[in-house]
């Protein structure tokens, strides 16, 4: 790239989301740090894979990015401009759109496909209503749906077709960033690969940036350009996809990777050595929050917060590399 580097298309600085949770009717409210100081930069055309176990805060982060939740602290920039602080959801939704996990529940069963896909145009009053049908048909072409589904209802479509509708709805506003929250996990294997192929094609054609939230690490490895691993509201490791899958540094990342069941017969089921206890997020462990499950934990892990190590290989939060 020549000249000045453009600002990252999406940047988060110390984003925190704290919920106040009451555990019983007489007990005082306690803070739950769902997202706890996350800083991330995503460049145009990147596919950021966001991985971690349920409850690690990845969906909260997605909600914050979509403007559905306001961060308690921290700032978010799109192309160098702030948008989220004002809570102006409309402004955000022009540039960031979601694709959700389950195309069976994310589409209104009482609306036609045409109405579902054109809704963003109506909400944002884009152009003349007479042009909307054309716009919807164009986007249906792009996602590989026949134009005749315009007047169909979701229940007349297969799972893969519904997910294409969800993609069409996300793309009709020509967003820069698409947040894909488990886009293929509700789909059959043969359909999953079609949707992944489509997402990769669209990224190239429309110059999109993706945030891909998935627990399927094989999918993440296949399409992500960089990966952020979340644990209890923090990003514990962030690096390029190659680096992460070849030489993961954080013990949690290694444990996640070793849990992946690749279709290679004879290898048996791996034992990640993690134990079962995902800690209580209201009362997180002291020091490094991962230390009770970590096979490599030593002295400082249970006492001090791990340092953030940022170098050529990416970013990792672990005492091992201090």
């Amino acid at each position, binding site marked *: 790239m020549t000249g000045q580097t453009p600002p990252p298309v999406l940047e988060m600085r110390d984003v925190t989301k704290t919920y106040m949770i009451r555990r019983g009717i007489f007990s005082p409210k306690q803070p739950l740090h769902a997202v706890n100081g996350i800083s991330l930069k995503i460049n145009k055309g990147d596919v950021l894979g966001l991985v971690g*176990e*349920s409850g690690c805060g990845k969906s909260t982060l997605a909600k914050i990015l979509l403007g559905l939740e306001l961060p308690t602290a921290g700032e978010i920039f799109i192309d160098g401009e702030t948008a989220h602080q004002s809570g102006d959801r409309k402004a955000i939704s022009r540039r960031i759109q979601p694709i959700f996990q389950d195309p069976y529940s994310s589409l209104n069963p009482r609306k036609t496909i045409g109405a579902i896909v054109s809704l963003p145009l109506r909400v944002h009053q884009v152009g003349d209503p007479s042009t909307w049908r054309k716009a919807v048909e164009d986007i249906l072409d792009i996602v590989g749906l026949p134009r005749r589904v315009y007047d169909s209802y979701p229940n007349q479509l*297969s*799972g*893969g077709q519904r997910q294409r509708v969800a993609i069409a709805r996300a793309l009709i506003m020509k967003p820069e960033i698409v947040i894909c929250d488990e886009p293929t996990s509700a789909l*059959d*294997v*043969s*359909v*999953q*690969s*079609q949707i*992944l*192929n489509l997402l*990769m094609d669209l990224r190239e054609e429309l110059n999109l940036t993706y945030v891909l939230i998935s*627990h*399927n*690490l*094989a*999918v993440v*490895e*296949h*399409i992500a350009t960089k990966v952020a691993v979340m644990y209890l509201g923090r990003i514990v490791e962030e690096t390029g*996809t*190659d680096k992460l*899958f070849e030489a993961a540094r954080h013990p949690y990342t290694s*444990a*996640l990777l*070793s*849990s*992946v*069941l*690749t*279709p*290679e*017969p*004879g*290898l*048996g*089921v*791996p*034992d*990640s050595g*993690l134990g*079962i*206890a*995902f800690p209580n997020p209201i009362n997180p462990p002291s020091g490094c929050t991962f230390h009770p499950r970590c096979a490599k934990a030593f002295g400082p892990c249970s006492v001090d917060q791990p340092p953030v190590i940022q170098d050529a290989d990416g970013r990792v939060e672990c005492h091992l590399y201090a």
Partner: protein
Amino acid sequence: MSAVLEVTGLTVDIPVPTGDLHAVRGIDFSVNKGETLCIVGESGCGKSLTSLSIMGLLPKRAKINAAKMEFTGTDLLSLNERELAAIRGNRMAMIFQEPMTSLNPAYTIGNQLMEPYLRHKKSSDKEARERAIYLLERVGITAAASRLSQYPHQLSGGLRQRVMIAMALMCDPELIIADEPTTALDVTIQAQILHLLAELRKEFNSALILITHDLGVVARVADKVAVMYAGKIVEAGSVSEIFNQPLHPYTQGLIDCIPVPGKTARGSRLGSIPGIVPTLIGDIKGCSFRNRCGFAHDACEMKDPFHTLSPGRGYRCTLDVSTCEANAKELVSA
């Protein structure tokens, strides 16, 4: 080795307003003591109905037929509801997909764990309690005794699934059927649960039928594999045969669909199977995969012969073995 379960010619038909839905269309399989059979296929292929028909849990309007459905020598179809109830949960047990919905929210874990034992083994409360605690410990749950008085909502998804497994093992069953036991769970928990299931299966020497759509799970857990498509078994074989030499175009397609870390080039196009599963209502002729198959030809409209290559190994296709083997070679080496 004696077969714990032997099924031949199993069909399940469900009457719908427009005719009969032929959900399972004549399948044969067997599973031996200490063996794991994986039934793999996509939604709607009939794999779950197959497991429900073994357990005798099909909806009333479903019509079931089989040339043979023997559980340790007993014909399951000839049993009445009372006789079946004596076997179910006792000598064969099922682990369902959603631990969230298959545990009763109104009863404690202890209550639900002890129920089958009290009922089938006519044991004392104390014995049942001890057995429940022993099994909760075996499935890796800490503070097992205090868990007995907890309700399902107090446990995480992974713990609930462990409770389901413990419950299935209460009466030391000869056959365990697990229907997508890890689909709702995180990868880390999935690996732990499957690890546990494999270990316990070895220890208790029961037969395990695992129903899944995840080829990663199949590869790591199965001894034998049956691939189902549109109500029929399209390919059967040992796990290494299925993955190293998949013969049926559908099996080949499935294997080509999934990215394999370190093998599939990053960002490359994944294989896909175009089209959708055909309707199974009314008369079906020929191979039901033909409209999605790259090798389809005229003969496929009339027949779908099953070629048995050796006991337990075969495939259902009009193509001859050498053609299928050549296709498999191309896929596996690619």
